């Protein structure tokens, strides 16, 4: 399944014109419908956004733009608030990835045993992933309601109550609260995927290790972790990308507040575009986000490649 095989195959074929998978145009024909579609609805708007990021454009009159060169970029990078936004985004993304993959792994290990009702447990645990973001934001906000929310009542009862209970109204607790909500929604997906990855762990190997008196932690690291590592890596990448662009949950719960403590790149972008009506600045913020994501992807490819090489040795 290497690229090499495929490129050579037609040449070595006896009937070069009837190569096994059709002419050299065939892949493009399979590709074309999707390419046209994605081009029209993703590439064209993206190109427009790149252009917009070099202009001053108002939401109220988007067809009239003034070219300002790098002004928008210079503006956001010299803005302390934007630096805080970048830091908040970083914290949010890293915590989401660690939280969702970590919680997913724990739950997967927990459910990767035979016990009665395992099917029910697996099904119920994955329910949060299916809940619509809007509904989650609504119920989370209600549960976190300072006066009548069940969360505060519970925290008060166990003596951990936040003074006044205003969790989402506190620049200290709002971000953690949003993080917990996000992880609650994400861990089902990671645990389901990790659970099936765990099926590939050779049971006799772990059993043998345990027989040899190896500790659980050692067995996990030496056997289980090696098998699920690629899956964890892929999930981490997916969670990173999705967390960078997550919008509804944060917007509906705090709108980025209080005092910018939950303002991630996408929230900032949306506020710039639709509150301040500055499409140019918003586009520039968006481009920063895209570049960051690209770096993440490139970085992950490098890591994967390095890991592959190590594995070959």
């Amino acid at each position, binding site marked *: 399944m290497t690229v090499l095989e495929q490129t050579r195959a037609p040449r070595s074929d006896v009937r070069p014109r009837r190569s096994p998978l059709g002419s050299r145009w065939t892949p493009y024909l399979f*590709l074309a419908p999707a390419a046209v579609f994605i081009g029209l609805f993703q590439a*064209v708007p*993206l190109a427009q956004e790149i252009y917009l990021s070099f202009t001053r454009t108002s939401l109220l009159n988007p067809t009239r733009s003034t070219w300002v060169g790098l002004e928008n970029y210079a503006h956001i990078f010299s803005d302390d608030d934007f630096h805080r936004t970048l830091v908040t985004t970083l914290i949010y993304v890293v915590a989401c990835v660690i939280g969702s993959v970590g919680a997913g792994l724990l739950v997967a290990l927990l459910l990767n045993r035979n016990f009665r009702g395992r099917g029910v447990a697996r099904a119920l645990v994955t329910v949060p992933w299916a809940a619509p973001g*809007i*509904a989650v934001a*609504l119920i989370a906000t209600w549960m976190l309601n300072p006066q009548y929310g069940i969360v505060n009542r519970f925290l008060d009862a166990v003596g951990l109550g936040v003074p006044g209970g205003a969790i989402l109204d506190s620049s200290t607790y709002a971000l953690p609260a949003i993080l917990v909500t996000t992880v609650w929604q994400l861990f089902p997906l990671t645990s389901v*995927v990790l659970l099936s990855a765990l099926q590939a762990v050779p049971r006799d190997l772990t059993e043998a290790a345990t027989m040899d008196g190896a500790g659980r932690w050692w067995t996990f690291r030496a056997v289980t972790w090696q098998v699920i590592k690629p899956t964890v890596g892929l999930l981490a990448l997916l969670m990173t990308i999705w967390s960078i662009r997550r919008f509804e949950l944060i917007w509906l719960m705090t709108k980025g507040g209080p005092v910018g403590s939950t303002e991630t790149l996408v929230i900032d972008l949306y506020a710039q575009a639709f509150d301040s009506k500055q499409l140019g600045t918003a586009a520039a913020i968006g481009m920063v986000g895209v570049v960051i*994501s690209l770096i993440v992807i490139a970085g992950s490819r490098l890591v994967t490649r390095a890991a592959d090489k190590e594995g070959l040795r």
Partner: protein
Amino acid sequence: MSRLRLGLTLRIVAVLVVMGVAVFPLYWMFVTALSSNSDLFASEARLLPDFTQFGVFADALAEGETLTWLRNSLVIALGTTALSIGLGIPLGYALSRFSFRGKALTTVALLLTQMLPEALMVVPLFALFNRFDLLDTLSGLILANAAFVLPIVALILKGAIDGIPRELEEAGRVDGARPLTMLVRINVPLIGPSIAAAAVIAFFHAWNEYVFAVTFIYAPEMQPASVGIASFIGEVGTPVQTVMAVAFMFTLPAVAFYLFAQKYVVAGMTAGAVKG
């Protein structure tokens, strides 16, 4: 022996806790919907649903446009699923079985689209939709949603097709079957679980989508449920019970659909995204 039993007990407790954490917010949505005002704003929480308040569901269905919203959401979700699967299968096949100039670029481009936030694309898409008369239509939302979910669908399907031994196509090759025939006859039936997984992802994406829906739709009878629920959030007051009742009715079909498709999703995600 007792240590073993302790471990087992701990494990059972842990499983129960995880299940509780997973399900509680949805349960609480249900309880909140079924609360009287005095219970809702009492100093002690009522932990069980008050079934005498069941009328809130009937009211939400009868008075509001809840059914219209749910129907619109369903149309959008099904349309998005059909479109993205229809376009995603050939794309995934091309990426899996062929090598061609620009393949690496295509893959990177697909990943790139996964990072574009909807909020960034709203304004240019609005102009585009305006030109094509797609504003205020469900078809417009289907196209927009499909464009956003197609890349991940294609990548999942590519991974799945990667997993099918090429030898299976050899037989077809000898018979001189065309690539399209081979794709439809040989590959598609074998990647059923992955198609199901991709379909579930596409369905959820469209079922939940809010940013496009709230901007591209203004006729009330075209609103999907995500926007409809938000419209209860009023300037002077928000009827908590009604909102929660509608939110619950909005959540339930997604959860049911998910539970129904769950075993395919697991198999498909594993075959597709993970190995891919």
